[in-house]
């Protein structure tokens, strides 16, 4: 028997979920062992060199105010910031950054290494050790055994990873990286059901040889807004992206070579991400389209490569070359790393409870791509939640969950454990039914107190936020109390094409004026010589303009809480309910929802099923 060391928590995998899953409990005072296949690829961005985007940007900001790392890492390495959806309303404003891939990895590893409660070891985990239905440790490939009170699996695409480039396939989790096959077998033995998913990535090309002269240049925002509450300034150089398009010639090349595509010849059995399809899927599925957009993204400040976002593919190398050469600006491009697809095992997430602990093995947690999600941000969000809950579990404390109306993280985890994803799950704003209150401007209001509670957000940050909040509240009160005369307000209202205040009215409060659609915080400031930093002005503006919606959301949440209070007894017998279809019974038995509210979101469960449940639960089961 080789060495046996004891830790509080073992985290398997050093990706975006693993980083958060290790840091959170370490910061809460736990001894954490992080096992990874390769220390050199901790924090690797395996796909796009970018963080955030629609709904994903929300997740990053939520993880940040909980005391997570992804926002800080993104800010330290961002080479471009863009706020997407600026014109479509503050609830869907979504920050996104382009990042320096190499730097990201570097700062991620440093963050882990600087945390003294974390030990990092490069070993392949092969077996989860169990005692009385509880995870107690890990056995590695070289025969070491590590004991711990809780295990968090954040294995990404590495479980039985199978790479595809054309009709060639070979074991691996990322390009030129080994995969983990033994752990899958161990999980199956424990009674955990595994499925198979597929994801793909785009080719990367040498910077020289790309002719951007005729391409649209996409610069970042002039005044970048950082992800993290901790970041004050962005100092590193900012880089542009370029936009090009596929054309009929490209599509023809793809069509002609589908017989060499692992996707279209049955080589790949895993289900791919519907919302992030490969270029061959786009061409086949939308055959009437003659063009698809391609973003040429910088790999980093010193990097000699570009990433081609929108061209994920697993076609053979020579086809990838032909395809690229048919695209404007890429006629001379040289592929440095081909696109590829990877198939991997995942845990059907319906086997997890709301704290991301598996139902069959206690103290075993899963987070990230292993749960069927896609994206760094989704992974980080689960990572921090699994990490916090692992720490709480071993301390025998109340677990931590977020509601759907509190955070996108709440929506994400509830969807996973309730709806049982069968394709890679990606976060969208449309999945959040309380979208109007899950905004990035109020993220600290929503969640920072949890970060403070669990000791993940230090007092300085907590204090800084509390001060800001007070300043906002006081300003809003002042806006309500300050009435401006028509002669002061009207010139500005006229300029902004708003109806003027009638002379006989005597005046209107700044609060009411700010509610008008064309009026922004600067206009108000001009009426009253107010001076406040830009970010507070924006937050105030949103809170004032959204006041009515926020009230309505709050009312509907109150109603929801009633359903939430209808808890379903743990061993509730669905078989006895006459009127429930067999399908509904089997779904309910699979998910075993905690509340009626959760039950109502299970696919295939109808409102009348919920009424039946309600009637039976009231009766006492």
């Amino acid at each position, binding site marked *: 028997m080789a060495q046996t060391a004891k830790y509080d928590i073992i985290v398997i995998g050093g990706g975006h979920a693993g980083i958060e899953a290790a840091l959170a409990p370490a910061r809460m005072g736990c001894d954490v062992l992080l096992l990874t296949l390769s220390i050199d690829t901790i924090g690797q961005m395996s796909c796009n060199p970018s963080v955030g985007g629609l709904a994903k940007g929300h997740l990053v900001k939520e993880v940040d105010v909980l005391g997570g790392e992804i926002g800080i890492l993104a800010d330290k390495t961002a080479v471009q910031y863009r706020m997407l*959806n600026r014109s479509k*309303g503050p609830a869907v404003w*979504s920050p996104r950054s382009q990042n320096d891939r190499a730097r990201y990895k570097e700062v991620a590893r440093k963050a882990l290494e600087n945390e003294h409660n974390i030990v990092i070891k490069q070993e392949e985990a092969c077996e989860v050790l169990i005692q009385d239905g509880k995870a107690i440790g890990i056995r590695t490939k070289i025969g070491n055994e590590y004991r711990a009170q809780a295990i968090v699996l954040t294995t990404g695409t590495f479980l039985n990873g199978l790479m595809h480039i054309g009709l060639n396939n070979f074991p691996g989790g990322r390009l030129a990286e080994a995969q983990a096959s033994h752990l899958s077998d161990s999980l199956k033995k424990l009674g955990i059901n595994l499925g198979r998913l597929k994801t793909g990535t785009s080719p990367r090309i040498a910077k020289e040889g790309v002719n951007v002269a005729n391409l649209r240049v996409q610069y970042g925002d002039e005044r970048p807004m950082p992800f993290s509450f901790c970041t004050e300034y962005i100092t590193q150089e900012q880089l542009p992206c370029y936009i090009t398009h596929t054309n009929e010639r490209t599509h023809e090349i793809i069509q002609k070579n589908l017989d060499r595509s692992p996707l279209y010849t049955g080589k790949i059995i895993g289900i791919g991400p519907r919302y992030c399809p490969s270029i061959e899927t786009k061409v086949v599925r939308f055959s009437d*389209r003659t063009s698809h957009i391609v973003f040429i993204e910088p790999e980093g400040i010193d990097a000699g490569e570009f990433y081609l976002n929108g061209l994920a593919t697993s076609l053979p190398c020579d086809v990838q070359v032909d395809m690229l050469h048919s695209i404007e600006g890429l006629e001379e491009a040289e592929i440095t790393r081909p696109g590829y697809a990877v198939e991997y095992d995942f845990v059907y997430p319906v086997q997890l409870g709301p704290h991301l602990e598996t139902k069959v093995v206690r103290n075993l947690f899963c987070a990230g791509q292993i749960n069927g999600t896609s994206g760094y941000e989704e992974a980080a969000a689960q990572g921090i939640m699994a990490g916090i809950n692992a720490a709480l579990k071993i301390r025998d404390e109340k677990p931590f969950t977020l509601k759907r109306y509190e955070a996108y993280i709440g929506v994400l985890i509830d969807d996973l454990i309730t709806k049982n994803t069968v394709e890679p799950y990606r976060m969208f704003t449309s999945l959040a039914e309380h*979208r*109007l209150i899950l905004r990035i401007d109020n993220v600290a209001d929503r969640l920072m107190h949890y970060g403070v509670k669990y000791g993940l957000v230090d007092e300085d940050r907590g204090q800084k936020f509390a001060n800001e909040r007070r300043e906002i509240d006081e300003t809003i009160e002042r806006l309500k109390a300050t009435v401006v005369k028509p002669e002061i307000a009207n010139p500005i209202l006229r300029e902004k094409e708003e109806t003027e205040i009638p002379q006989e009215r005597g005046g209107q409060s700044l609060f009411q004026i700010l509610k008008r659609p064309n009026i922004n915080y600067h206009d108000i400031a001009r009426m009253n010589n107010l001076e406040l930093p830009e970010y507070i002005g924006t937050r105030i503006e949103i809170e004032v303009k959204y006041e009515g919606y926020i009230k309505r959301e709050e009312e509907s949440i109150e109603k929801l809480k009633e359903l939430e209070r209808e808890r379903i007894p743990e061993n509730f017998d669905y078989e006895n*309910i*006459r*009127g429930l279809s067999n399908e509904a019974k089997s779904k309910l038995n699979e998910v075993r929802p905690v509340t009626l509210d959760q039950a*109502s979101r299970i696919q295939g469960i109808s409102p009348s099923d919920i009424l039946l449940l309600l009637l039976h639960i009231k009766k006492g089961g």
Partner: protein
Amino acid sequence: MSLNDTIVACATPAGYSSIAVIRLSGKQAIEFTKKIFQLGEKVDDVQPHRSYYGTIVEPDRNKVIDKVLTAFFFAPHSYTGEDVVELSCHGNPLIVENIINIFVHLGARIAQRGEFTKRALLNGKIDLIQAEAVLDTVYAPCDEARTLAIAQYEGKLSQKMYDCKSKILDLLAVIEASLDFPEEDDVHLDNVQLRHDIEAIIADIDALLHGAEIGVKIKEGYKVLIMGRANVGKSTLFNRLLGYDRVIVHEEPGTTRDYIEEGVQLSGLLIRLIDTAGFFTEAQGTDRIAQERSEQLIEEADLIMLMFDGSEPMNERDVFLYDLVKDRTMILIINKIDLNMHLHESEILSDSVKLSAKTGQNIDILKQTIKNVLIPQFERKNILLTRQRHIDALEKIKKYLHNSLQAQTLDTTAYELHAALEIIGELTGQVARKDIIDKIFEEFCIGK
């Protein structure tokens, strides 16, 4: 309440009748029936949707209770979606009670109000609007109300709501795509088109709401006021329309001091007919309270029938009354055409109905005129709403759709459209709201 057990109730009114129908629903409905029902003919087993003649025999004592006809319906092809038995026995309350008691003894439970329909709803056989329509079909007070209730039961209103829902969903699909895929160049939101589409949905809802006023009236009845000076024949017309002598008629003017109200079905409409009698007459004098009540009567009336005496020239009192109600919905009536006509045909009386309340001449014309005035032909196709619940819901949907047009940003446009969808769900019962459903079923009688 539970859906686990088998329920039983008498579906026909209490009291003596030629037959009574007892209904069972639930998984043991057929089993229970077989225990006490001896088939008159020899069959291997009962078939669904067939009636069988036989005898009800009390299980232990072998005592014959009645000769009955029994129909079997197998789940899910029944009213409730469960196994259902309908048993027609002789309409003696003693027999009914006896049979129900036997079923209860076997393990059935007496159904609660509306429980059969509630089960149909919970089993997905009908939606909430249809469940309400069942109630309205049973209690329709007039022919027009019954026609409306059946249209709702057939799903005509539900279908309109589902159409509305699918239109909103189509819009949301585009909006959500535009919100969640801002960088895809094939996601284009045409704001003008969006506006136009939302306005079209509002127009549909407006049409329904417009017809709702009539729909509710059809169900609740119209208030129709008979007015005219003393001795013009108001009470005679009142009795004529009712079809019996409700009011004592005297030659002496001002015989009836108070007003009298009766319900009657005229041309398929429920009419609350009011004989204003002593009101609006000289006899009323300057009594202030009576004055106020008269004004209130006019205010509340859906239709005013102003009568003139054709056998006498028009006097000041006639003109006074005409001026009082000339802006209201009204029908002018010239009575006593069986006598010599002395009334000058002036402009205002040209479209009047000329009749004799006493002989009944032209009464049918009056009845038809009442209906045509109350329900204009062009409104008919939009009359589908009959309940305040429906109207409230549609008003809300309309409000949210209006809000969506005024929303400043796309995220809030989407919010309002989602809010409208939620209300449609509550209206049809697709969004489970136990409070709403309980309230509706409180109105039901047992056995339905």
